């Protein structure tokens, strides 16, 4: 398992090194291109700017959440409560906006809340050594039950127009796309070029070795969870502001979609390797597939089977590539 995205490989051309470091990302990227070409050839409307806009904007919140999830998985952990957390954040944001607080409060307070909650989860994981899947499984129940108890499932409507950040379209492009792109670039730079970012890989690769190298692994884990909370918070705000109403329930199966995006994007579930670009590409790929299946007249009954087959194909392709790389 490579400890970093670009291990110094001697005797390889720069291109080979690049391909070695970003193999899975390239597979996902080519799959997106492939879908655009094939589906676009069958039905040119697939390539219309409105459809491309909706493909990129529709899953942007999933991509943003997957950035944080990728970091968590790189650090050797997992979070199955992220879907519930996004539901809670959206509800808090919507409630604040409707109560008449300034929109910047409605946007930022839930993000801080999300960071605090996840830092708590991270502390529990880091200092008590309870597996993260157990803590977050528990959090999933607590957040989900708590949300329904608090709201009784009442929808939030009559949101102020200036609150709708995901619907703004600077230069004709949905703002959610800007968030997705900018955050992906920032996160990529962050994990590659900062000490903290590199220590995430070290902790995920081998916790004791990381400790021996002078890293405080507990602090890194708490930090990664807080950071994940930050991305989940932004994802929650984008989710909340996409439509005129907020459902104030937990979006079904969102955690599975986010985890799948990270994993398909090339993050090793064993920790220690992967990039955040991959998960963003994978989230876009999902949106592409969802849209393509409708464009190709795939019988809606078989839609999920095709999706499962595609995930399996991507995973097997990745495994084959890794074996070749060895």
């Amino acid at each position, binding site marked *: 398992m490579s400890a970093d995205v670009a291990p110094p490989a001697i005797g390889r051309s720069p291109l080979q090194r690049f391909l070695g470091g970003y193999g899975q990302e390239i597979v996902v990227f080519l799959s997106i291109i492939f879908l655009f070409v094939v589906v676009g050839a069958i039905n040119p409307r697939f390539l219309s700017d409105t459809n491309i806009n909706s493909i990129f904007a529709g899953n942007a919140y999933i991509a943003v959440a997957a950035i944080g999830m990728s970091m968590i998985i790189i650090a050797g952990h997992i979070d*199955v409560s992220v879907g519930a957390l996004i539901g809670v954040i959206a509800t808090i944001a919507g409630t604040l906006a409707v109560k008449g607080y300034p929109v910047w409060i409605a946007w930022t307070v839930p993000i801080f809340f999300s960071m605090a909650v996840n830092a708590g989860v991270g502390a529990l994981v880091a200092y008590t050594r309870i597996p993260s*899947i*157990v*803590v977050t499984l*528990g959090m999933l*129940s607590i957040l989900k039950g*708590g949300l329904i108890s608090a709201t009784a499932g009442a929808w939030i409507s009559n949101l102020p127009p200036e609150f709708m950040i995901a619907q703004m379209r600077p230069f004709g492009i949905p703002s959610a796309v800007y968030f997705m792109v900018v955050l992906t670039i920032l996160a990529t730079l962050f994990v590659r070029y900062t000490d903290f970012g590199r220590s995430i890989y070290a902790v995920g690769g081998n916790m004791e070795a990381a400790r021996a190298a002078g890293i405080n692994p507990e602090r890194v884990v708490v930090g990664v969870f807080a950071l994940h909370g930050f991305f989940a918070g932004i994802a929650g705000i984008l989710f909340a502001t996409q439509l005129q109403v907020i459902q104030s329930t937990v979006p079904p199966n969102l955690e599975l979609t986010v985890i799948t995006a990270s994993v398909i994007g090339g993050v*090793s579930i064993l920790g220690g390797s992967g990039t955040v670009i991959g998960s963003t590409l994978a989230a876009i790929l999902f949106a592409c597939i969802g849209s393509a299946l409708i464009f190709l007249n795939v019988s809606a009954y078989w839609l999920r089977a095709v999706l*499962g087959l595609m995930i399996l194909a991507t995973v097997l392709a990745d*495994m084959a590539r890794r074996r070749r790389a060895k």
Partner: protein
Amino acid sequence: MTLSRWLRHETILAVLTIIALIVLAILSDKFFTTENLLNQGRLMSEVGLVALAMTFVIVTGGIDLSVGSILGLTAILLGVFWKNVGLPLPAAIVLAVACGTFAGWVNGFIITRFRVPPLIATLATLALYRGLAEGISEARSVRGYPEWFFFFGQGEVLGVPFQLWILGIATVIAAVILGLTPFGRATYAIGANETAARFSGIRVNATKLWIYAAAGFLSALAAVIFVSRVTTTRSDMGTGLELDVITGVVLGGTSIFGGRGTIIGTVLGLILIQALKNGLALSGVKGDGTIVVIGLVLIGAILAGALFDKNRGG
């Protein structure tokens, strides 16, 4: 990995379960009655059966997220084989269970042959098997089963629900296999250190294939009982089952990292969850409140176990 260390978590859990039972019995006089307890046993049978196999899976350091989808797929196939293909119902049941077992085996095959991490492999088959269930059934239900078929899910033997007997027998078999046989020791060895297990001559891949196939088999068995209990098949049956099962197993003290866990712990974990769900409902707590309590108990129980371990200098 001594016996006393395993017992530690189970002891805490047993005490916790007894306290919960006493408190719930005080809160509602409807809770601690034979009728209610047997009925709860009926309701937890499907989750229980799958949890037995899941214990093995998690002890090897793996996970199986596709169990709910296998349940749904088996249920649909049972109906399709019987109604659309026209097989006699007993043959349809056997064939559907065989298909469910095969689906589990496929998981094991992908995991061992292609070295795909179990989480990913079964995440993919979670979607695939559910998709097959939807596609094959075109979302239509199959109903109108003969009366004798309902015995599996609604009948009683000596006053105890039929599926509780099945669960009981399966529990004993699973406990014996995991605790007392070479196969069980191999399971622990794989979870503790797969490479070491391989070098010490354990047939790692074969063992894993058996375990994932068994998970498929028990999910399929649960599907038959479920269909018989609710008298119809639907392609969305068993949705979300995997989280209930994993919660029970993990609460029972099985380590998600593998190498540690017992069937007794799993059974205690399941009983505690079912008792909480039922007892809180009977004492007037609404469903959403119950979910919160279960989440807190899960974290609390594991935390308590971890703290005890630490105090012993472990």
